[in-house]
């Protein structure tokens, strides 16, 4: 059971929730840039929520499905289709063997997540299926997909198998079948040309000039083309320290906003380094990291300040929503 890559697209790699526990050896976390979308994709096909999925960036691949499968696509909308017919996102979709899944124009967001019931049959390296692209570790041969790759898919079990059976029955002879329900997609702002990201003050916030900290919360920043899975480099009003700050390198986290000497802030993302020595002006609330990850180069970002307590509350609310969603989907799929 497998999926064959007919066209590679811009950058498609296997990612899960990341490789934790190895940063002390200098091995970065990696994982999905928008882990919320990854979790939802897995939940929709009956997988464990942290299973490895395809992270598809901006221009998608063409994939030949070599067995009847269930998949779910979440995250950015890169116009998935089969034989010119649009494949609906944010819900389980049954596809018959031989279907060719293609992607087109990127309509919003920039990273789509494609989960397959059963997951990819690849080894976990250091407890993770994520691809660490720079080091060539994990995922499919430690790299993004190339033409001719054949991705092995595990036989679905448990819930994933039940979902497959249910949709296969509904499909009959049709090549594609979906549920008559879907989950909410609108958590990603539709107008992704300008997004507001909620942040907390960073550990060196007080070392920046008043003008800089005011600009941080009032002026827009543009996502530059130097942005990648490691971090988003922003340009806009320059952020300055009151006086030069010599720092010993210390741990950085997902969503840390650090400011190098040129004054242009960087938001650290999935492939961030494990430690950094630049002063940190802000920390993105975890619930908004996915929104940053779906922002294209050229888009504008505004920062707005929230407290740690507010960020925690947002996080807890979202986790509760996910748990409720899991229950609702199981009920809907007749468990």
């Amino acid at each position: 059971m497998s999926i064959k890559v007919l066209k590679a697209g811009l950058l498609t790699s296997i990612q899960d929730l990341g490789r934790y526990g190895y940063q002390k050896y200098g091995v970065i976390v990696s994982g999905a840039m928008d882990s919320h979308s990854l979790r939802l994709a897995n939940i929709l096909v009956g997988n464990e929520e942290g299973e490895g999925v395809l992270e598809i960036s901006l221009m998608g691949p063409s994939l030949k499905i070599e067995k009847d499968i269930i998949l779910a696509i979440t995250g950015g909308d890169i116009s998935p289709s089969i034989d010119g017919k649009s494949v609906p996102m944010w819900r389980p979709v049954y596809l018959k063997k031989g279907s060719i899944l293609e992607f087109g124009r990127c309509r919003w967001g920039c990273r789509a997540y494609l989960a397959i019931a059963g997951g990819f049959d690849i080894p976990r390296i250091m407890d993770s299926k994520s691809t660490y692209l720079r080091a060539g570790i994990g995922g499919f041969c430690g790299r993004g997909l190339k033409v001719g790759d054949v991705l092995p898919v595990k036989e679905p079990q448990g819930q994933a198998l039940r979902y497959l059976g249910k949709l296969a029955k509904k499909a009959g002879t049709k090549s594609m079948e979906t549920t008559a329900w879907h989950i909410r997609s609108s958590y990603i702002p539709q107008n992704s040309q300008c997004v507001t990201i909620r942040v907390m003050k960073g550990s060196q916030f007080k070392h920046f000039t008043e003008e800089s900290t005011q600009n941080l919360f009032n002026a827009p920043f543009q996502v530059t083309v130097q942005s990648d899975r490691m971090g988003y480099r922003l340009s806009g009003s320059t952020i300055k320290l009151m006086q030069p700050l010599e720092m010993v390198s210390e741990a950085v986290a997902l969503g840390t906003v650090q400011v190098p000497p040129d004054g242009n802030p960087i938001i650290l993302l999935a492939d961030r380094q494990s430690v950094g020595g630049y002063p940190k002006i802000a920390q993105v609330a975890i619930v908004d990291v996915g929104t940053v990850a779906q922002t294209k180069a050229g888009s504008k970002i505004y920062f707005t300040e929230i407290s740690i307590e507010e960020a925690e509350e947002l996080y807890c609310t979202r986790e509760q929503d996910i748990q409720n969603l899991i229950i609702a989907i199981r009920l809907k799929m007749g468990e």
Partner: protein
Amino acid sequence: MLTFNEIKEIINLVNQSCIQHFELNHEATNIVIDKHSLPSTTENKIGLQDASAVDSTLVLSGESHEKQLPRKEVPDQQGDNLYKIVSPTVGTFYSAPEPGADPFIKINQQVNSNEIVCVLEAMKLFNEVEAGVNGTIIEVLFKDGEFVEYGDTLFLVKQDV
């Protein structure tokens, strides 16, 4: 097995709610309460058998028990070709796939039976409702964000002849 008082409490709760059909499987007891079945019966008929031999079955019927809030009034006078698209679930009504997007359908629009006319949100899932007939939308009875009960009429459709 459930005690008599527990069963009585269940009957009362269902009776006071707008639930039309209720099923419960608890250990060896199987309870079905259906307000639709046996519509001709004027008295409540309750049959309860012992669980060990046969599934215990409890049937409560009758039309006079519902204490529903006043729901949308639906005009009935427009002839035989008028079709009601009714809600298959409780939930929140949305006329468009996304906030700010164009609605699935508008008044006076032609629809096919398998066309999606709205979504109903229940437990974070957005359930699509199909027209069910070919025809023209005459009236939309709910607004975005309004709560819909099971069986409520959502749209009136003039059926194609």
